[in-house]
């Protein structure tokens, strides 16, 4: 396509030529495709809309920005937005629709692990690509999925290290919502803490149902557990919605961050937007990005976001950065491959480095996870985080080293290995290989 050359030519003839050519291109467009479609698969209604709608907006913004820069491979991008309505089987149905009916080149979407598990077989069967932008429990590596959110070692373990070292924490409450991400993360953390010499009696694990709103008993239990004379901290894998009442109860029962700090893995700027954070100052969160990151690229991103949403109060958060990285990595891989063909992109994307929003770069690794720095932030009175620690970029570890059955597994999707669960002990692909 010759749109790029058009601006270069100043002569009337050149402009005419371009006009004619663009007219023919336009004619062809209806028969062939002059746009590249990408799918956006985020719930816009139902329980998950609260988190996922933002990511849909981010994707639309990224597509608009990319189109301003001339699109991809000289074609405009077109986002196909569907609403899987927080209904997991509907995710699979919509994924199938996006891939086989709308013929999208890649899909950006999902939030919960359930939704990802629901669409995974569809992506593998129809050989398409999914970019998954949310932190998750690990223990998965699909040929067709890129995990741009944090694996447990990119979030949980550095946070625990920070608390143990900088706050001198000796006693741990692992509080989570009763579902797979908290269960797995807590299993990993427990194994990790015990490998560091923490006694089992110094670890309290507590689970609550989804959307739990009465935290009185649990907060007072935490208080009780914390009054054993050792420095205590709470590691919270409490799911988004339940956090607001949890923090309100913490504030009201007078648990200050100086006494029992809470470090959360699911609480970001967006969740805090529904809270008065003054009583929470000093509680922590671990992510790979905070809105308060001091970097030019971040300032630029926030500005675009405010302009795009026409609301300068909208916050940015970590999954948005993950979506940003995933999108840019895909664009770069497509341009390197010269096609949107799935196999070609899967080959070309490994090793692609794109800027992340914390001022560095993130690289897509052969295990389909990416490198990112881990940031620990303390909640501020204005609902933002003050970054108290930043690590060097960490490679996402899909198979945790702290779970007995996954410590021998690695994933490498480069040829000739092309395996998501290679067992280094037995030297075979396919788990235990027994």
């Amino acid at each position, binding site marked *: 396509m010759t749109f790029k050359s058009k601006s270069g030519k100043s002569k009337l003839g050149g402009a005419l030529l371009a006009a004619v050519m663009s007219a023919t291109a336009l004619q062809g467009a209806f028969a062939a495709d002059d746009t590249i479609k990408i799918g956006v698969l985020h719930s*816009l*209604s139902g329980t998950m809309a609260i988190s996922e709608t933002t990511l849909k907006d981010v994707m639309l913004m990224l597509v608009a920005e990319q189109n301003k820069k001339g699109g991809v491979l000289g074609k405009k991008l077109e986002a196909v*937005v*569907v*609403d*899987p*309505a927080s*209904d*997991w*089987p*509907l995710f*699979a*149905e*919509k994924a*199938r*629709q996006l891939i*086989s*009916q709308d013929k999208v080149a890649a899909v950006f979407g999902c939030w*919960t*692990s*359930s939704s990802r*598990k*629901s669409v*995974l*077989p*569809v992506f593998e*069967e129809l050989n398409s690509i999914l970019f998954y932008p949310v932190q998750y429990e690990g*223990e*998965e*590596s699909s040929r067709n999925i890129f995990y741009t959110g944090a694996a447990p070692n990119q979030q949980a373990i550095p946070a625990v290290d920070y608390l143990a070292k900088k706050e001198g924490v000796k006693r741990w409450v692992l509080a989570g919502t*009763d*579902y*797979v991400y908290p*269960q*797995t993360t807590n*299993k990993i953390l427990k194994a990790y803490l015990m490998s560091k010499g923490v006694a089992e009696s110094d670890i309290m694990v507590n*689970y609550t*149902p*989804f959307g739990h709103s009465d935290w009185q008993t649990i907060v007072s239990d935490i208080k009780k557990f914390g009054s054993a004379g050792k420095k205590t901290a709470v590691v919270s894998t409490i799911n988004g919605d339940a956090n607001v009442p949890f923090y309100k109860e913490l504030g009201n029962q007078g648990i200050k961050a100086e006494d029992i700090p809470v470090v959360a893995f699911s609480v970001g700027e967006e969740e805090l937007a529904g809270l008065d954070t003054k009583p929470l100052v000093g509680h922590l969160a671990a992510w790979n990005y905070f809105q308060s990151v001091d970097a030019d690229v971040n300032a630029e991103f926030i500005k675009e976001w405010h302009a795009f949403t026409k609301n300068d109060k909208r916050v940015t958060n970590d999954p948005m950065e993950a979506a940003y990285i995933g999108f840019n990595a895909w664009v770069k891989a497509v341009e390197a491959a010269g096609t949107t063909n799935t196999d070609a992109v899967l080959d070309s994307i490994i090793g692609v480095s794109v800027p992340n929003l914390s001022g560095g770069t993130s690289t897509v690794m052969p295990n389909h996870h990416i490198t990112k720095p881990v940031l620990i932030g303390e909640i501020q009175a204005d609902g933002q985080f003050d970054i108290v620690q930043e690590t060097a970029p960490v490679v996402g570890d899909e198979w945790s080293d702290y*779970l*007995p*059955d*996954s410590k021998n*597994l690695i994933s490498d999707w480069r040829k000739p290995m092309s395996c*998501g*669960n290679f*067992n280094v002990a037995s030297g075979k692909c*396919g*788990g*235990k*290989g*027994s």
Partner: protein
Amino acid sequence: MISGFVFRALEGRIVAAVGILLGIGILVPALNLLTPPDSAIHIPTYAMALFGKYLCYALLALALDLVWGYCGILSLGHGAFFALGGYAMGMYLMRQIGPRGVYGNPILPDFMVFLNYKELPWFWHGFDWFIFAMAMVIVVPGLLAFIFGWFAFRSRVNGVYLSIITQAMTYALLLAFFRNDMGFGGNNGLTDFKDILGFSVQADGTRAVLFFMSALMLSLCLILASAIVRSKFGKVLVGVRDAESRVRFLGFRVENIKLFTFVVSAMMAGIAGALFVPQVGIINPGEFAPANSIEVVVWTAVGGRGTLIGPIIGAILVNGGKSFFTGAFPEIWLFALGGLFIAVTLFLPKGIVGTIQHGLKARHALKAAADAEKGRGDATTVAQAQAAE
């Protein structure tokens, strides 16, 4: 006697419906498999999977209609039976993965491996046999319905109270299945299936067979339901719905009648769930959500409760609309859905099929009345019109 039972079921409209269903059941897979993808009459796999899902929902709605439309039990927990059937099928499919799971454990499903299960929980045993699993598909929902109904109907819990405790039942199951310690994969549920009876679940051929099975089971259940409601038992059933005390005074054991219907209905829902799972590729606790069960009620109401065809049409229409609107107007589809429910209850209180029937009947009655006025009317026309109801 049995032939009489079945024969009565095959009243004209049911025959037509079964014919259409089986026709679809054969034609859709045939068009999917036998025509080239670029042909105008080709049905893409995507559409077939979608429609297969609708057929499962239709079966679920039919099951609900049997208890609600004919027995007056508004169950707000039918999703639970559906999900249990689905889980039974899902467990079979999980066991078929065998050593192809990501950890390569030949016995334990993946989620058990990373949650440190040492051995298979007792309730997972036997699910590697297809026959056993298929038996469980109807036994488990049937048993739950039996226990639940045994207590509830004996204590004469009815009306709104019954609806609310069925909702409590599915809600409790939702919370229970969410728990990882239950051994059903927690909120992620069961997924990443590979084979069913040795055939890949992702192969077009398998999908075609599953689709046909869905249409077939729906047809069979339709015949069964029709047989039930047209039998003598069915007349009593309607009596229970309309005047429970009176039927009781006449000497019928109302609780047994209700219990039987409730159990049959739960088994149908279980079958629907079992067919649903391999076609959508996942079963998780979301299916237990009370809102899902309410939606089933809505499909039935939209189509027309107390008619057997209505729920099938309702389920297909509402879900088709949902698929279309969530794709075409993701931002506003809830307005459309909500508006539809209000409109149907206000303007089509008998549902689509019920209204059409009513309209037909009214026309018959009008015609009969006109004939009678002309002095040529005879009782048979009116009786026919009534029989058509």
